[in-house]
């Protein structure tokens, strides 16, 4: 399926680590304001796909990317200012990493790096992002505490708040619920439904049901191959285009 006016477009993407291929001939488009679920077993190349997008992959020694990646039609790999590109993308890693600074400073970090110095503006941004990440009520009274002292679930929401702090157009979540409890996961899922009004979301998930709940379309990656991408109800329905998809989403995978 071809998306009209794609927000993100990968074409013939190939990623190699040394002589090991992590992604092969992946072509995929994402529409503005959609949630694209990306599922697949470990080692399928899901994380690599996200790291291609914000160009953090090129720092890995031996990693090589070929093909074409565009955001709003603009070639990502021709962009001069990588920092600017990365500020357009919010990235949430599988394991939360609270930077070793206060909760406030964690969220204010990216805006400060981008040149925001006004105290009032920073305060507004910090409160907005913490509210969006459903963390504000729990930390309002202790913004000066170290971010690393929060519980796992709170730290994960802190990283989401951080990812939102530079007002990204695209939000990438990489197995965000791996270290948090189901209740918190549900809260964040509600948050995502709200956020999609303002941004495009790539949701890499190890929980296939999470993609089913949230994604408009779902992509299934297997060992670096994009097996199938289509409307979520189709991918999860009785007749996906590929038999392997059926087996994976219904848990018959061998």
């Amino acid at each position, binding site marked *: 399926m071809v998306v009209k006016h794609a927000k993100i477009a990968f074409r013939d993407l190939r990623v190699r680590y040394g002589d090991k291929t992590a992604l092969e001939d992946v072509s995929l488009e994402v529409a503005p304001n959609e949630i694209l679920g990306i599922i697949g077993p470990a080692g399928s190349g899901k994380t690599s796909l996200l790291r291609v997008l*914000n160009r*953090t992959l090129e*720092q890995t*020694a031996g990693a090589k990317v070929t093909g074409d990646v565009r955001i709003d039609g603009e070639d990502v790999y021709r962009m001069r200012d990588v*920092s*600017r*590109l*990365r*500020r357009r*993308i919010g*990235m949430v*890693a599988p*394991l939360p*990493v609270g*930077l*070793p*600074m206060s909760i406030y400073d964690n969220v204010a*970090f*990216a805006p*400060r*790096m*981008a040149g925001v110095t006004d105290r009032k503006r920073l305060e507004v941004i910090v409160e907005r992002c913490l509210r969006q990440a459903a963390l504000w009520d729990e930390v309002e009274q202790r913004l000066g505490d170290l971010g690393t002292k929060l519980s796992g679930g709170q730290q994960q929401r802190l*990283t989401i708040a*951080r*990812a939102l*702090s*530079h007002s990204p157009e695209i939000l990438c979540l990489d197995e965000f619920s791996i270290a948090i409890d189901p209740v918190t996961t549900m809260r964040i899922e509600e948050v995502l439904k709200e956020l999609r009004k303002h941004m495009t979301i790539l949701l890499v998930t190890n929980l296939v049901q999470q993609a089913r709940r949230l994604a408009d379309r779902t992509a299934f990656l297997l060992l670096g191959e994009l097996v199938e991408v289509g409307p979520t109800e189709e991918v999860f329905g009785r007749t996906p285009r590929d038999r392997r998809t059926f087996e994976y989403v219904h848990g018959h995978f061998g």
Partner: protein
Amino acid sequence: MDDPGDNTRLVGRSPARERLHRATELVIETVIRVCGVSAVIFVFGIFYFVFREAAPLLFGGLDLGQLLTSSAWYPDSSNPRYGAFALIAGTLSVTLLAMLIAVPLGLGAAVFVSEFCTGRTKEILKIVIELLAAIPSVVWGFIGLVILNPVIIDLFDTPVGLNILNGAILLALMSVPIMVSIGEDALKAVPDAYREAAEAMGATRWQVTWRVLLPAARNGLLAAVLLGVGRAVGETMAVLMATGHSVNVPDSPLDSVRTITATIAAELGETAQGSNHYRVLFVLGSLLFLITFLVNLTADLVIRGVKKR
């Protein structure tokens, strides 16, 4: 491993083997404990022997006020005077200037090697820096005498180039390798996840270094600096050769001075054991010990204070 037979054998170990096992454990534990305790004993031992030589004079007529405030150092005269103020000032001034040079250089190099170099460049730089650490201090002193001395004379138009600046440059070059290698370890210990998280938010490498890495590694970096200071305070040979060896309270980096260490090294061989001159040198040794102890204590308190925050 999952063989159940194996398991039963482990659980049902014979009492004799069990006892042997416990005994080995005990021996290992004792050895480790002895090692740890002996390190403490050695430190106190060294201080004890230095202090023992100093004590008879220290408690038998030495004018402490004169020692610490007067610059009249005439240990050999028939009417000896032991004013070590100039020596203390010499030590502190050389060390201070050395640190002013070495800290930015050392930490800068640590950051460069750890964060901005990869592959071969990094390996080569590390080897060169380690080589720098292996140069004996008498060679540094020689460099001070024959290379830095004329350079300083030319550059600053002074009659002698053996002075604080000369000694400080040498000490800086000597302590930089320690700072780089400890500092690099400290930076390497910062989890990559921090770098990646900060970079994913659009921070440039400089911003990552300034805002994330240096704060995260500050304890290790402080340790690196203090080990450098320790090296500089205790260094003898190079400063003996390069600082001009004149007892003098300096008022410019181009003044010649003499340090505590240089004084001890130069004079100890010529004194009669047990004489007052001999003993006052051990008093100076105790003083040096006290200074390093205070430096370390301060460092410890600073680090603890930082941790509490």
